[in-house]
């Protein structure tokens, strides 16, 4: 049972990561690419870590939890840093119906 669950989590993690990579290629501008690439990956990696933890002993489970917490803290910060840099450089959004409530500030 554990092996099946572990396999499901592995496949789920790989699927999420693959979608993240494809999203990076498909999305038209830096902001939308950020959503696909940086953060969709978080859940993918967590699924892979959970799969590993199912097989492992206490030390591996602890490591998986610590890595998950580290990713939960650093992924949004990295995405914010890239997003803020793009916004300050006034990177355009390449979708005609995109909304920008800060456009009057520029």
């Amino acid at each position: 049972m554990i092996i099946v669950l572990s396999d499901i989590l592995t496949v789920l993690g790989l699927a999420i990561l693959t979608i993240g990579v494809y999203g990076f290629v498909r999305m038209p501008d830096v902001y939308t690419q950020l959503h696909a690439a940086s953060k969709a990956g978080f859940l993918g990696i967590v699924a892979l870590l959970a799969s590993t933890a199912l097989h492992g002993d206490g030390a591996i489970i602890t490591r998986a939890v610590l890595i998950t917490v580290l990713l939960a803290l650093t992924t949004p910060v990295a995405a914010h840093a890239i997003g803020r840099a793009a916004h300050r450089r006034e990177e355009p959004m390449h979708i005609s119906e995109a909304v920008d409530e800060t456009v009057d500030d520029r």
Partner: protein
Amino acid sequence: MRAVIGSALGLGLLFMLTLASIDPVDLALGVTLGAVLVALLGRRLRLAPDGVAVAPIQRAVWFPVFLGAVFAEILVGTWDMALRVVHLRDLKHPGVVRFPIGERSEHGVAISALATTLSPGSVLLEIDWERRDLVFHFIDVSDPDRLRERFERFYDRYQRKVFP
């Protein structure tokens, strides 16, 4: 002094997370390095004082609820993003929107920004302290007012009791 110790301890814990280790020696090394950094960089690394006090028991009781709500948002956001990536949902109205900071403390703003940015489909771009707004990019802003309402509802229901 308390802020210095808190910051050094926080940096020590971050060091342990980076190493994915719970070895006490790593903790001691991390706290030492953290203390050196705090001493060198001073106020820039110290935690801002939290203006609003929350009873520790209340925080302990509501923290798992808050974590669960954030995890649910991540699942919903990931699902939504996946559908958009594989062309099953339109990508018509992404955009930059402003959210009022409202009654949030500095810590509350940081936690709101972290929790919202962690979910795919939303990323914090700026914190405008002058206008007291958070500027986010969302993957779908076809109805900005509904988004703002949802953001406030999440704060009121789950975050206020833990990180006001």
